[in-house]
């Protein structure tokens, strides 16, 4: 676990220009991932999890529509750290899809419907690796086979609509892996898929990661999937990191009340049919990013809210040992209360 990080993000902030001012979509996000590690980023809509990944891929609009600040350092092929947020676009093009790749939730819309599968994969390969069309085609067959697509050679001439959702996601993974990226960002890659297909894709990602040693940033709202694949977890709420920990301690002893609430609100499969009573839901709604609450963004929904404290100052992200961080003024008191 002591391998050097392949990606380090520090104080990332993204602001969008909106009617009547600016909206802070992401503020003060810092994290790192190591080779072979899977970092799950958990959050609900508006938590900033997707904006974070799009910022790293440099896929957000340019100023003045959008302002990005902070630092993101990615290990380059030669070991040199690349400053992702400041790289000129021409150099970024050589990095995007090559050292850092991304797969999306919707395998239906992220493939081009009028180009064959073969054409889309060979295009991606030849963009970063100079080789003949024939060689790229052989490589495409190898990749399709690697991601478990039956009869890969025949599939080269198929169009996306010929394939099922799970098969399309496999094609997306094949394209993302074509350049053996150091970091793969997977943004809700299984959300649109059925559970049996989700199980196949998670299994595939795990196998591929073991083979290649790539770091995976897995963005999801599904806590079951997090428990299944993550080494470490970053919990986001209203554009900020509110807790970060290794997966086991996080599930065993969450420190931030939002994490606790989220874990409790999911029905437990092992209690199915037990008539366990009402689910402990988190009251209220996810805050509107245009009008964030004062102080801690979670305070209007928090059962441990203390007037005059939690709504007064925004808590800083605090190091609490064992590589854990938490953003809550009251986490110590709350831990004592719940332990008592």
């Amino acid at each position: 676990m002591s391998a050097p990080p392949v990606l380090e993000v520090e104080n990332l902030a993204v602001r969008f220009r909106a009617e009547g001012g600016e909206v802070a979509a992401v503020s003060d996000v810092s994290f790192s991932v190591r080779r072979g590690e899977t970092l799950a980023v958990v959050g609900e809509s508006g938590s900033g999890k997707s904006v974070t990944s799009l910022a790293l891929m440099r896929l957000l609009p340019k100023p003045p529509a959008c302002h990005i600040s902070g630092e993101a350092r990615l290990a380059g092929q030669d070991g040199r750290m690349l400053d992702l947020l400041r790289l000129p676009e021409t150099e970024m093009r050589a990095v995007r899809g090559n050292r850092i790749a991304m797969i999306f939730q919707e395998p239906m819309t992220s493939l081009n419907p009028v180009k064959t599968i073969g054409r889309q994969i060979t295009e991606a390969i030849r963009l970063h690796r100079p080789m003949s069309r024939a060689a790229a085609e052989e490589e495409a067959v190898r990749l399709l086979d690697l991601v478990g697509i039956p009869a890969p050679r025949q599939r080269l001439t198929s169009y996306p609509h010929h394939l099922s959702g799970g098969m399309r996601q496999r094609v997306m993974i094949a394209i993302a892996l074509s350049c053996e990226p150091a970091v793969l960002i997977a943004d809700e890659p299984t959300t649109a898929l059925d559970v049996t297909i989700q199980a196949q894709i998670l299994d595939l990602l795990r196998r591929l990661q073991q083979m290649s040693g790539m770091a995976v940033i897995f963005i999801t709202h599904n806590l079951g999937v997090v428990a299944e694949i993550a080494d470490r977890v970053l919990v986001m709420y209203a554009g900020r990191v509110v807790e970060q920990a290794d997966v086991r301690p996080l599930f065993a002893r969450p420190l931030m009340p939002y994490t606790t609430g989220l874990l409790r609100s999911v029905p437990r499969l092992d209690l199915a049919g037990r008539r366990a009573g009402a689910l402990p839901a988190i009251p209220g709604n996810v805050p509107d990013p245009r009008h964030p609450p004062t102080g801690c963004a979670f305070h209007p929904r928090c059962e441990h809210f203390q007037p005059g404290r939690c709504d007064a100052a925004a808590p800083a992200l605090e190091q609490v040992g064992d590589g854990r961080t938490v953003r809550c003024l009251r986490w110590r008191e709350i831990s004592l209360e719940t332990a008592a």
Partner: protein
Amino acid sequence: MSAAQEQQRTPILEVEDLRKWFPVGNALLPRNRRQVKALDGVSFSIRRGEILGLVGESGSGKTTIGRTVLRLVPPTSGRIRFDGQDITHLSRRELRPLRKRMQLVFQDPFASLNPRMTVERIVSTPLLIHGMEGGAAARRAKVEEALRLVGLLPHHAARYPHELSGGQRQRVGIARALITRPEFLVADEPVSALDVSIQAQVVNLLVELKELLGLTILFIAHDLAVVGHISDRIAVMYLGRLVEIAETRELFLNPRHPYTEALFSAAPIPDPEVRRSRIILAGDIPSPLDPPSGCPFRTRCRYALPACAQDVPPLREVAPGHLAACIRDDIQLRSSVTET
């Protein structure tokens, strides 16, 4: 048995050998016309006051069941009885008085509400359709009552859908379904479009309303944890057929169909300490245009025998109240939960 218990036992909905085939292909070339068998011989009944969960993957026919039993699409063959009355062939006019007794809650709270109507108009539309308005004051009172039932405030009546959060919109959809005081509700993926912390709120609301109003609910969903939490009984569908139906706890503890076993084992459990050996099904759900002969699941079943390709296995009672459509009585299937 008391009269009230007797009432509880009587099915509110009985479905017998229901088929819904959709023709596809070229209408001018009859030999090219084929049938998608979205439902192929489905039989079940729902007792008054129960929540029957309906699970299955995309394309299994869940949504078609919901729409067909409400007579929103005409069945190809079979019989639907609502409260003892055969409604299979009722005309639109004859269905009118029944419509207010059975309602539908949709998945997408963004697409199912007219963006140009206020909440008051959206919620009161069923009153208008059924001639139940009774003057502006009475209508307003009914709308307020319905909003209160779903946990919204009277001032929400003047709002437009875009002013509401996803959870609030889904509450509006539920208020609209409840305003005619139906006895039977089809809820088609009512929480899958919502954030995790909001899902629990809506699940709790549905359970409360069921108790309060004595509703019967057909709860269609793909999230097994949610279905397991809310349902009294669960029916499992595969490729247009019902493969298993049982009391919730019984189904989780003693699955008797290999598809149920695989489906449940694929559901990720939000606990990193739980390490299950999961059954990963090969391949995708077959095309409903060209279903396998015999048992529809045999192409992905790890217990399949040559005999499975012969006949479609009938749904038969394997334990009291537990029906499964599998010829393999000799296998011991794995439970995905342990009795605690």
